[in-house]
């Protein structure tokens, strides 16, 4: 019963996000105001979407300073191209699309350095060896680090769909728009990403259950 309630709550959370567009200061209103020259409205857009965009980019690039820089680049590009946004109700999808492009461009140049860092990170070896779960006192800190490192081991496409679905709660349809992937590809990538993350994080999940 609890399980079904939890699932229902997740579904409704997704619908709630969409319904928020009908409130005052909806995305459509804000975009109309920015197009009319009201920069304050763009600040509101920034305040609303900066956190999810920053989290998303961080999940893709794995470096804080770089993620912050790319988040700013995303909003500057968004501002410059706002006139070309076709469907105002899809502002977040559009911003995630820009963020994805900005992050991918950056990853191209960072790839060699990043892969070296990943290989050097002792936690990767630990995750692959399925070592013993860490001490309870460190569980949260370690778990966050473990998730970050595990994400970094996924290939770019899987990390992208996993971050959009699991962390950003985007629908499959929205993910298809953001990534340009077919529905079949994104479902396969998501399934494999989940399986890979599960394999890497199993010790933490078991401890999490006990806590």
């Amino acid at each position, binding site marked *: 019963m609890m*399980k*079904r309630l*939890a*699932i229902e709550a*997740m*579904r409704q959370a*997704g619908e709630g996000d969409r319904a928020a567009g009908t409130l005052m200061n909806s995305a459509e209103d804000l975009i109309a105001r920015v197009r009319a020259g009201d*920069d304050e409205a*763009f*600040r509101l857009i*920034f*305040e609303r979407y*900066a*956190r999810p965009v*920053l*989290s998303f980019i*961080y*999940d893709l690039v794995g470096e*804080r300073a770089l*993620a*912050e820089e790319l*988040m*700013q680049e995303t*909003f*500057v590009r968004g*501002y*410059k*191209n706002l*006139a*070309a946004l*076709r469907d105002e109700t899809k502002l977040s999808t559009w911003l995630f*699309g*820009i963020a994805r*492009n900005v992050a*991918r*461009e950056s990853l*191209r140049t960072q790839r060699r350095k990043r892969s070296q860092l990943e290989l050097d990170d002792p936690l990767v070896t630990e995750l692959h060896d399925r070592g013993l779960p860490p001490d309870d006192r460190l569980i*949260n800190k370690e*778990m*966050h680090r473990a*998730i*970050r490192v595990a994400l970094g081991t996924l290939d770019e496409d899987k990390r992208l769909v996993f971050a959009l*679905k*699991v*962390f950003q709660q985007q*629908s*499959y349809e929205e993910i298809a728009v953001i990534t*340009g*992937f*077919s529905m079949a590809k994104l*479902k396969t990538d*998501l*399934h494999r990403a*989940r399986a890979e993350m*599960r394999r890497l*994080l199993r010790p*933490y*999940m078991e401890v*999490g*259950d006990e806590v």
Partner: protein
Amino acid sequence: MKCEECSALIEEYVDGELSGREAERLTAHLALCAACAQEVDELVREQELYARYQREVEVAPAMWQQVRARIEEEKEQEARSSNTSAGWRGWLAETFGARALLRPAFTMALVIIALGLAAFAVYRSLNTRRTQPTAVAIHNAQPLPPFDIEVTPEAPEKAATAAAVAPASAKRPELIRASAKSRGSVTKQPAPENSRSLAETLAEVEQRAALVAARDEQVAGAPEQPLDPDMELARHVEKAQLLLRSFRNVRLAETSHAPDISYEKEQARRLLYRNIILRHDAAEQRNTANEKLLAALEPILLDIANLPDHPADADIRSIEQRMRQKEIMTALQVHSLMAQN
């Protein structure tokens, strides 16, 4: 429902992506099958774990200040470029405006210039009649690409087709003037040297100058001269066609690795700004056809501008598919032909 079917749908179920009927069937199965219910439990627990994930990033107030500063910087740059243009317009208005026309000396100067031009036009027209009609060679704007396309004034469509099927190795767009009345890149096949008149030579020099100007503009991205609105739109449409053809050729050119489209991206970005302005102009003038054409072109320019420098094949295909669906190339070609006529 069997367990295999249920297992294949469990992730979509937890993600809230199943249709109502499928979700009901799966819920009914879960009530009876402990193993599948266990799978759902695990997925939900995973989701809860990920929901607790805290990243070491935070949106600091300074970030908005930095974004705003960069936006202001962009605006200033735009204002500077439009001020330069406004400055030229102001000078032209002052020089050729109504007040200037009232000055007798200025009016006299204009009359003399007009008479001179008329005399030159008559002289040139008389000399041109003596020469044979000539084929027009369309030259490439770039120094390297290896092919020229021969176009006669009667066959502009051939030029468009030839450009569309240009070798994929010629990655960059070619400057093609498909109309005899177009100003750029035209070299007449000369009549016998000893019969060349001064007017012919002048005409050729003028055409060569136009070729150089057009090539410089394309290569260096030099700012455009103020144009008649129709001419400006025609030139924009022509550039858009060149870009889209070049974009289409990119994938054909490089099959072994992700192609480099940084040039096309830059062009798309430039054209996008122009497109927005022209679309607004068309809307203000209630020119629905032009507005519709530019509105169809805009998202494609935006998509190309937002691609990474080395996009995946799927990204390129997706944009190409949209180009085909919107029949944008046809619409642009029709516009060009109508503008020429």
